[in-house]
């Protein structure tokens, strides 16, 4: 009779120990969760602080020029006139060119790497594609000036304009200088390609084998199973990759500044030089002597910031809706 009682006491003591330890753990949990909540809140706070800082610094310019700041092309800092329209236009158009060129290529690369390439080839080729993202932007710019621009000047631009007669579209007309919206778009395409390809490859590899098998079992060819089952399954993820690439393209500065020609004019032809918000900031920040000029630059920065946020929000919404 004594033994079981002892056993019960012992158990009870153990229980107390366990309870105490749980209480200790609870305090640790609260401290820990408080700490990580603080760290997590730092990020949005930082974002809002930057937005507020840039916004308030740019406010005088936005206030003075009003909505015209976004739509006007009259940029004459000496006269105290600032219009951001050419830069906004250039940012958007060069990014669109980049995505139009890079997306099919990137999806092709990722399909090759995930579906078609023999096993031994996947790693090295995938590594090389990822390496494109590691090349410094200024090196792309340099390569663009000394290799891409001469090739564009002759034979690419004359070929598009005169041989294919694409000058009638208005997009490929005018003199072939070299530095142009087209050059900037091409260099951006090369720069965003690894982002889209890398995300797409991961997404394609995550498509369950059962989806491919289901298509194959219906008598689909390999191509039909990729087109009908694998790509639709991966669609939302691939869209996410494209948006990531778009975010990169909108903000890219150095290589674009070196290749776009930096002329603040809106031209229909992609052969003509242009300007982007990022290259405008890079070119003018050191020469901004007047307060108005500085404020105008801050306002451009704010608009760029806003556009990036809006694009990302739309992307999130698209991905969410597709799911």
């Amino acid at each position: 009779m004594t033994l079981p009682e002892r056993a019960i006491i012992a158990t009870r003591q153990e229980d107390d120990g366990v309870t105490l330890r749980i209480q200790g753990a609870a305090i640790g949990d609260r401290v820990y969760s408080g700490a990580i909540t603080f760290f997590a809140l730092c990020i949005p706070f930082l974002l809002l602080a930057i937005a507020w800082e840039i916004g308030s610094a740019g406010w005088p310019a936005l206030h003075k020029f009003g909505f015209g700041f976004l739509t006007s092309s009259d940029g004459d800092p000496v006269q105290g006139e600032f219009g951001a329209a050419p830069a906004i236009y250039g940012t958007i158009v060069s990014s669109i060119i980049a995505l139009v060129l890079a997306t099919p290529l990137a999806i092709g690369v990722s399909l090759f790497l995930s579906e078609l390439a023999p096993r031994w080839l996947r790693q090295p080729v995938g590594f090389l594609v990822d390496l494109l993202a590691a090349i410094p932007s200024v090196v792309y710019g340099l390569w663009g000036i000394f290799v891409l621009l001469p090739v564009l000047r002759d034979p690419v631009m004359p070929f598009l304009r005169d041989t294919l007669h694409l000058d009638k579209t208005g997009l490929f007309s005018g003199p072939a200088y070299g530095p142009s919206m087209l050059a900037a778009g091409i260099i951006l395409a090369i720069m965003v390609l690894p982002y889209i390809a890398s995300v797409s490859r991961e997404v394609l590899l995550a498509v369950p084998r059962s989806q491919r098998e289901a298509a194959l079992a219906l008598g689909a060819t390999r191509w039909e199973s990729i087109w009908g089952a694998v790509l639709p399954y991966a669609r939302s993820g691939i869209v996410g990759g494209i948006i990531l690439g778009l975010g990169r393209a909108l903000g890219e500065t150095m290589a674009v500044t070196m290749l776009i020609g930096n002329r603040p004019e809106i031209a229909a032809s992609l052969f003509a030089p242009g300007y982007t918000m990022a290259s405008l900031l890079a070119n003018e920040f050191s020469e901004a002597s007047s307060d108005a000029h500085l404020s105008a630059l801050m306002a451009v920065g704010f608009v760029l910031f806003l556009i990036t946020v809006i694009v990302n929000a739309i992307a999130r919404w698209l991905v969410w809706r597709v799911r």
Partner: protein
Amino acid sequence: MATERAVAADDVSLVSATPVADSPAPRMRVDSLDAWFGSVHAVKGVNMHVRDRRVTAIIGPSGCGKSTFLRCLNRMHETVPTARVEGEVELDGRDIYARGVNAIAVRRHIGMVFQRPTPFPTMSIRDNVAAGLRALESGRPSRTKIDEVVERALVRAALWDEVKDRLSTSATGLSGGQQQRLCIARALATDPTVLLLDEPTASLDPISAQAVEELVYELRSDMTIVIVTHNMQQAARVSDSTAFFLHGELVEMDETNRIFTTPADERTEAYITGRFG
């Protein structure tokens, strides 16, 4: 017809060591089939006759090669890297592994349904069922033709009444059991002569499983069905003949009631009485 059957019955004694009932005629004939994954010999020298308008069940413990064997019957096995097949599989007298036979054409005649429901999540119910239909030589089937085929397939899969009002909604909104019957409808839409089912109820709740079982029992009136199952009660309920696999070999194949009452091989008896597996 009678002579054909007699010939087929003769073939049984020539080709197969396992006696198989002679009626009706075999739709598929498997002759010394071997299959490998890399160096793993998963299916070893299997001979089998699959009879027309009958349900053939394949039972056996996990890893006995029954799914691999099934996947050899419509050339799905070879879609896995390092997979290899040797031997003959005949559908209506033609070797599907013969030189010049297109695996894609084979799979259009021999449909397959997998363990887990695999609807295409981005497609509507209608598009899922129509996924296997595609441009014929005469051009793409018309919209009304597709609707007709979709309805017939869904009716045969006993799913029409549940989904007829929401054909254009996503297939992911269906329950697991409905999704599996959708996959069966999808396989039926291309009008295959043989339907292979790889543990079709393994991931379903008992009521959904029963619906699929009843469907299998109905379908046998106009097609040939081979079903892999680890559920012996299921094999006993739905099948006409049963094959028992062990370690990649076909141990025994016979009428289902004979396998479950008086099996010839003691290993079969040990398995069905639950002594291993």
